[in-house]
């Protein structure tokens, strides 16, 4: 199968997955105990007002009808209205997209090369001091929860040293210097676990490659170690890594919810968190679909990269 046909086939496969994500999200949010009208109105609501809101938002309709109505709107790229904020979900998401994309993008841009570098170094120094230190740092990075790390960084750099702001967001387009200052701590917080995961994967993959016969042969031929490491072993070790790199996007999305809350960044993660607390159906479904599209695009690109690197994949 040509790469072109493979690309089309993989892209089309996204459609039923998205429908599945929507259906599952729809069913799950509606299966949650409680309803958004009660949460919105709190204790002691006026029954008349509650009835009115239930009717206005169609919650009195059978679930299958609500599902079909929502699906129809979705096909017209209408994500509906936020029940709590009384505003279109699309508008709310667009407002918050910038900070989340910047935060996630920069975290990844920093995490990836750092992880590859440390992973290769660790594998090259297998079972030596450098390897032990890298592994320990990796393990610590993996085991440190985002919320704890974020608060500790705030305490250190904003409170004790008072060199960086504790919270807030400035757009890099408006003031790059202020933006950089505001982003340092959230990016470190978000990138730490990513770096640790990727570093450990890189190391394992590299250690495996370096133990293979062709590496021994290359050494026997007297090829320089650096060349063996980077041109031969690293290239082969990249294959399993490419898959992980794409899948790591989902962990970044998870992390952004917590990091945005701690650092008061007005991004999509916070929107989703508040939406979930308030059972704001429109926001939860809208964000899930958006994140699913983003994630599936990441997976698609990974698969295409995989198919490009290893043509055997296209014939599976």
């Amino acid at each position: 199968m040509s790469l072109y046909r493979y690309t089309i086939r993989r892209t089309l496969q996204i459609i039923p997955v998205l429908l599945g994500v929507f259906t599952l999200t729809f069913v799950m949010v509606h299966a949650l105990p409680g309803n958004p009208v009660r949460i919105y109105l709190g204790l002691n609501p006026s029954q008349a007002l509650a009835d009115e809101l239930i009717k206005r938002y169609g919650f009195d309709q059978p679930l299958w009808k609500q599902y079909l109505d929502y699906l129809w709107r979705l096909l017209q790229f209408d994500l509906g209205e936020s029940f709590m904020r009384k505003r279109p979900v699309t508008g709310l998401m667009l407002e918050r997209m910038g900070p989340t994309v910047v935060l996630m993008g920069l975290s990844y841009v920093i995490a990836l090369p750092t992880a590859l570098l440390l992973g290769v170094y660790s594998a090259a120094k297998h079972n030596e001091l450098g390897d032990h230190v890298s592994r320990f740092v990796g393990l610590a990075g993996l085991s440190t929860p985002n919320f704890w790390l974020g608060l500790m960084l705030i305490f250190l750099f904003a409170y004790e040293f008072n060199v960086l702001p504790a919270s807030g967001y400035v757009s890099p387009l408006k003031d790059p210097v202020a933006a950089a200052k505001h982003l340092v701590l959230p990016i470190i917080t978000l990138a730490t676990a990513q770096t640790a995961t990727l570093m450990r994967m890189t190391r394992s993959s590299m250690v495996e490659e370096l133990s293979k016969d062709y590496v021994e042969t290359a050494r026997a031929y007297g090829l320089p170690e650096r060349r063996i490491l980077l041109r031969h072993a690293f290239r082969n070790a990249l294959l399993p890594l490419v898959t992980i790199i794409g899948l790591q996007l989902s962990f970044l999305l998870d992390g952004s919810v917590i990091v945005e809350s701690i650092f008061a960044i007005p991004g999509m993660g916070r929107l989703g968190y508040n939406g979930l607390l308030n059972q704001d159906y429109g926001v939860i479904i809208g964000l899930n679909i958006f994140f699913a599209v983003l994630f599936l695009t990441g997976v698609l690109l990974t698969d295409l990269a995989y198919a490009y690197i290893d043509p055997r994949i296209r014939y599976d």
Partner: protein
Amino acid sequence: MTDKRTNFDRRRFLATSGLLGGSVLAGCTGGDGGQETTTGGAGTTTAESMGGGTETTEEQQQNVQGGGTFIGTTAEDATTLDPRMNELAWVNGFLHYIFDTLYLPSPDGKKFVPHLAKEQPKQQDDTTFVIPLKEGVTFHNGDELTAEDVAYSINWMLDPANKSPNKANLDFIDTVEASGKYEATFNLKYPFALFQLVLSGMNAGIVSKSAAEQKGQKKFGQDPVGSGPFAFDKHVSSSHIDLARNEDYFLKKPNLGKVRMRIIPKPQVQFVELASGGVHQATVPKNLIGKAKSEQGIKMKRISHFDYNGLIFNSMRKPFDNVKVREAMQYLVDYDEILKATKGQLGKRSYGFMPKDVNKSWEFPWKEWKEKYYPAKDHQKAKQLLKEAGYGGGMDKTLKISSLASSKFKNMAIILQKELKKVGIEANVREVTIGQWLTELDSGEFDVNIYGWSGGQDPDGFYYYLFRDLRNDEGGMNDDVVGNATAAYLYQTQDSDKLQKVDETIRQARRTNDRAERKKMYIDAAETWQSLYPHIPVFSEQAVTGWSKDVKDYEPSAFTQQPLCNEWSNAYIQK
């Protein structure tokens, strides 16, 4: 703002990291580290100074320089800035910067001071009040504020077509008429004791009629026009709200040039921002109060919330349908211990299902109530009562105690669970979401649940909202709603004349203007309810507000709706 620290020692780090760690853990369980659950009502507060502050001298006053931006913090974003449609308590407080009300409570909360009103209401008869307005007040769009705007603002909320959530709070008003350019006449449906209290709150904020009609409700909520000391400038969703000085404010020109309210969800981060000079005001979390006290640049005040928190029994099903079982529960807990485990120093015990501050200001016999209805821990007595109720041999089921995922609530539930075990009763504590909690209260699917309510400084805020029989409301209740979230489940199981009489009393109390008469009514209601032990009443909350000493002529208090520029203060940032 505050001193910048550059030295850093290990012990200090460990001490604070431990504190932060504790905060984080609390945050994990939704405790003090996270957003506190708002359970309704219009939260009002009283305040106690925590020392460490310096008073503003005359010399400092003379140093006032115009301009400066005051930066405050809050945990939640606003969903609308239209006072006619807002329901969030903190937004109501914030909207006092943009909008004015006819009256304001004095800083000690003892009287209502005319604000947009020229003087106290002139009573024509039991239900008619004429309120003259000050002349020369202008909205931020330049229009003059007249009686038309007052009538429009209130009547708009009363119109069922507009579905204002504030309608229920204003339902005692029939109509408001502009009886002159500067004179509004309020026609009430019935005499109402809380008339001026309601008019001093943001539920009765005055909006510009022309701007509201021109923009439409939704746009007005995003770009509001009021007459307050600061005009709306910008709202960056989930980030901040900016206000700019109203140069023509009718009281005086505000000293501050701008006000910014930053939305910072985590109280620990709010505190760091305050201590490091990023903001001028923040909430200080319980476990960082000691640290805040050591900060030279911070003043603090302990502010009591007029709220009530406790555990509610489901008296609609066994075993709590039996009053002896409910009474036995009072002997199981040590009230002081339960308070300590929930709010520690930041809480006060409640009596008569009201905060202690309400008990004191109304001079209710709370000490007698304490003796009579809040017994010392006595497991033998509890066992005896359980035996009399037919549960001497234990219970044939495991009790279900529900709690929101918040340490202040969960600890109450856990303490009761442990004490129940000591008398041979098994109970499970189950964490629920807000949605589940409200559903359980509606459906009655629980044995014991947590309860929290913010009712304000009047007993009506607790008794009318928690202890009236909802079935007697106009329109009644839907059939599928069992408890409808009131704390008065007993109405549905013990439909006695005695309780119906209490319902009448509670309703009558808000229509009675004579304070002494009202007091007697609330004592009757409180004693009836307390003798039925529907809850384990625990505490009313306190919070600590910290602010930078660079902000002068600023003193947050219980009753001051907005402390930056009003009849008593005009804050400024010392250069």
